[in-house]
């Protein structure tokens, strides 16, 4: 195997700049997915069957089709849907956010249902209305239990974000590919990209462990 990393050193800053692009897309999509996921999970446990039906249909569609297809639908479909072409990174944030909301809503729903029923009864017996009981008593306990699953989802999101390459967003993956094209050698830059993704995931993992430790304070 002859690997020549030497020739890629000048291109390294260019590839590394992709981290910012990737992080921006992932963090915004993560926030969108999380907020929408919470709302959908409330729909799913709502006593109004109609809301549950909507959320289930949503999850079914976004889980039942490929992410790359959703990305392309939103990007290439936008002129016909809303009349103008949105820029690629907006399309990426939207599709990743909408997609992970489907998964996150399932995670949170399960987390809420796993909290002992006695907790909401105790809150009710104290005269605490549904909404604050949910926000202050049930959700914090649910979050603690689902944190590993949630972290998993964000890690998946970080890695899967590499598919924005197909609509031309210059993230880490795309940049590695471009550099490879310039030098007619793809192996090394893609190895470098792999290392970068791995490092990002490691940072997320450590971050997740830290939050988990903080939340386990009451144990």
């Amino acid at each position: 195997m002859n690997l020549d990393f030497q020739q890629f050193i000048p291109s390294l800053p260019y590839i590394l700049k992709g981290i910012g692009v990737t992080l921006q897309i992932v963090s915004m999509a993560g926030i969108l997915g999380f907020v929408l996921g919470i709302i959908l999970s409330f729909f799913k446990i709502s006593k109004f069957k109609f809301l549950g039906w909507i959320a289930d249909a949503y999850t079914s569609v976004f889980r039942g089709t490929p992410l790359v297809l959703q990305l392309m639908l939103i990007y290439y479909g936008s002129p016909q849907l809303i009349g103008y072409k949105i820029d690629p990174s907006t399309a990426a944030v939207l599709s990743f956010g909408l997609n992970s909301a489907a998964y996150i809503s399932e995670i949170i729903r399960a987390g809420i249902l796993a909290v002992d029923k006695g907790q909401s009864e105790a809150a009710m017996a104290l005269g605490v209305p549904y909404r604050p009981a949910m926000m202050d008593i049930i959700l914090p306990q649910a979050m603690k239990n689902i944190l590993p699953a949630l972290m998993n989802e964000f890690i998946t999101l970080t890695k899967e974000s590499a598919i924005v390459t197909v609509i031309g967003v210059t993230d880490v993956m795309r940049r590695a590919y471009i550099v490879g094209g310039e030098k007619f050698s793809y192996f090394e830059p893609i190895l470098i990209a792999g290392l970068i993704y791995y490092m990002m995931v490691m940072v997320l993992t450590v971050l997740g462990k830290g939050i988990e430790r903080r939340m386990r304070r009451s144990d």
Partner: protein
Amino acid sequence: MIKVENLHKHFGKLEVLKGISTNIQDGEVVAVIGPSGSGKSTFLRCINLLEMPTDGRIMINGQDITDKSTNIMKVRQNVGMVFQHFHLFPHKTALQNLTYAPMKVKGISKSEAEKIGLGLLEKVGLSAKAHEYPNRLSGGQKQRVAIARALAMQPEVMLFDEPTSALDPEMVKEVLDVMKNLAHTGMTMAIVTHEMGFAREVADRVLFLDGGVLVEDSSPEEFFSNPKSERAKDFLQKML
């Protein structure tokens, strides 16, 4: 005063309460006893509407709480409840467990809530544990915090649903002592319990339920020494 009239509760086809009528006077301590499955917990849970009665009326201080227009949250603020399994909020310290509802529901300030909370923790003998999380407390301590939490809302009535059934034997007394002290302050209390000695000593009245029917409603002396019904006799024989 709590007035229960012809209270019925169905769970699907199962009829758990079959028309219960009784009164609980202000300051009265009522022990609700009976075999398991007799409906005593359901009866208690109807009084703060954790269970919605299927039929019948419950009046608290003249207000019909089963009426559709009644604000259930307001009713519950006035009726404290203590559960068999404590149900303390595990992510809050003992003191935070006490201050949460008064601050959230009644809107009183943090300092005021903490003052009330610390006072109550002292009353149940747990001042030293104010800043501990529930997981660091023993069962008896948890239940005493749970009693203090209910009291922090300054309710007029306290409901106890088998408060000592989940405790190790050596912790039963500390909880019963707290309840005894509370009874002496003139709190109106309804207690579902299997502690016959406690019922006999502390209760002003005993309600004996069996199969969803109020079989006996009498003074503890009468009930324990001279039960009228066969079912009560049978039950007491097994218990004592």
